[in-house]
Structures are given as C-alpha cells and as structure tokens.
C-alpha cells in the first residue's frame, strides 16, 4: 500500500505539473480539492481519471463513485488496490 501511495503521488505530481509540491509535503490524507488541501479542480480530476486508466486499467464510469474516490491520495490508492487490472 505504501508503495502504491508513493507511486500515485509521483504520477499525480507529474501529470498535473505540481512542481512546487515536494513528495514529502504531499500528504496522502490531505483533501485533494479546496483551499485546505492540495487545491486541485475539475480539470485535474479528468487528468487523474485518464492516469488511472492508463496505469492501472481502471475505468471510472460512474460519477457517483468519483466524489468518494477522489477525496485524497489514500482513498484513490485504496480504490486502485481493490480494482486494478494491471
């Protein structure tokens, strides 16, 4: 799980071009959206959706699932671990 969280942090950081955010400061429990957290927005979500598909073979088609999955890097990792196809 630890490794998966680190991989996801790195992949999200690269995909979203979050140069100013170091991996050490990237808290896996921090909310991804809103001012209190990483501060991502709807366009970033789309990037993560495609990232999960490309890297883990996960197709997220149900918008209702999205809100729960994209709360933090940890919730994404939990979902990936349970649903990954590669």
């Amino acid at each position, binding site marked *: 799980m630890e490794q998966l969280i680190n991989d996801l942090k790195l992949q999200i950081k690269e995909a979203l*071009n979050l140069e100013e955010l170091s991996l050490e400061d990237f808290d896996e429990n921090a909310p991804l959206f809103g001012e209190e957290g990483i501060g991502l*927005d*709807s*366009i970033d*979500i*789309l*990037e993560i*959706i*495609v990232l999960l*598909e490309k890297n883990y073979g996960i*197709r*997220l*088609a*149900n*918008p*209702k699932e*999205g*809100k729960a999955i994209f709360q933090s890097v940890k919730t994404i990792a939990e979902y990936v671990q349970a649903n990954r196809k590669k």
Partner: protein
Amino acid sequence: MAEQNWAGTTYGNNWMHKWLIRLLRFIDTRILYLFVAIFIIPVCLILNPSRGIAYRFFRKRMGYGRLKSAWKTYVNHCLFGQVVVDKFAMYAGKKFKVEIEGYENFARLAAKKEGFVQLSAHIGNYEIAGYTLVCENKRINALVYAGEKESVMRNRDKMFADTNISMIAINPDMSHLFEIDKALEEGEIVSMPADRISGSPKFIEHDFLGAKARFPLGPFSVATIRSLDALAINVMKTSLTSYKIYVTPLPYDKTTSRQEQIKQLSGAYVAELEKRVRQYPTQWYNYFEFWNEND
C-alpha cells in the same frame, strides 16, 4: 482577472419562450427582427451594461471611431436579437439556408475510429451547427449549461430526438467530466465552447485582437489528454435567412509535451477565432469584460 459573469442561460422565462415559438409558427421571422430592432434593442441598450462592453469592443479591439462604434453596438445587439429569434424559429420548425466551408475536415475525422473535439465560441449562432453537422457513425455530445431554461432544453431534446446528438450538462458535482471522458474514450465527438472560463478557473493567456485575453484551459486539456484531433466550428449569420458554417482543423504536435500541446492547440483556436471575429465583428456576443484592460 477579467470578470466573466454571464447567466449561462437564454434570456426570458419559459412562458415567453413558449409564446415566441407559437408566434413563429405563423409569422415571418423578419417581422420579429424588425420589432426587436425598433422596440426591444433600444430599451436593452439603455438598461443593459452590454452596451458599454460592446462599444469598448468596437473602439479598442476593432479600432473604430466613436460614431461607427456606437452604430456597430446597435447592429451587434440587433444581430444578437436575430440569432435568438432564429433559435426559436428552428424550434418552431423553420429552416435556414446553410452553407458549409470545410465539411471535408469534419467528414475526415468522422470516418476515423477515434473520437474528436469540436471547439466553438460565443459568436454567430453555434446551435445551427447542431442541426446541420450530423454524423451517421458517431454520437455528438454537446456540452451545455445545466441552468438553461426548461423550455430551451425541452425543445433541444425534441429537435435532436431523431439524431445521434446528446447533451452533457455542466454540473457542479463534476459528473460531466466522466461523461466527456467516456464519450471520447468510446470514439464519440464532444462539442464545447472554448472562449469562456467556466467551472475550473484555470486559463491560458493569448494575444487576441491586439491585447492579452484569457481562455479556459479545460477544453484544450480535454482534447490533448488523449491526443485527439480538434476542429473549430464557427457558425456565422450571412443574411436574414442564411448561415455559413466554418469547419477548421486545429493542428498541434501530439508528440511534444502536454503543456506545449495545450499551448499550440489553444493558439490555433485563438488564431481561427480572431480570423472569424475580424470577418464578422458584429457577431461577437461575449458581453463581459473579455480583455483585462488594466493588465
């Protein structure tokens, strides 16, 4: 950042829309154009801040003199009124003469297995394209504002009932992103405006008509995320009863970095938009401070 406030919805209430559609079944649209130009537009020009915004557009961006700018402001509002009337005239079953320039660009992408993106703008009357540029083998998904009036949505649904065009409403719960991604992944077409910042505040800045302007990052990000082809679709009113659709490919280097792809694609879109706005300056309908003149 320039203020970009707009209602995202067609003016008037449902009752007015129903009444207008009924009326347009019996009367010539030109009678309504005349009524709007004489009685509605002067009142709008007095009451609505769009007057100043349009005037500044003609003065600063098009470089017209004071008198010409004032006249063009009136013409611009009259044309906007005509475009709204035309939209309801279509709901009432009226047809317009439509010419297409660059249809081969649309046909070429439609024949491919992959999906593609159509980028529009708030110039002319894009809705006409929805009734004309149809594709047999690909569904077209048009992104629309979720807050649009029920009468407009119902009539759009009715008009598109026998076509493979569907609407994706922009929702605060982000569900539209899943729909967009699913549609493109399945090789369909996604059509969206790329001239107004909505939802995500992210933007990309370009020189546009002689000054810096901000364009939404979203549409360009959506197209490049899967390295998809993109077209600019602009539908301009050419006479009282006819329109011309311009279908222009928007090239970008798909092998370069994402940042560079977005820059190239948005640059191509802005260049095409500038070309059409210079060609049809009175059909520019972004009634908010598009350029931050203080920057």
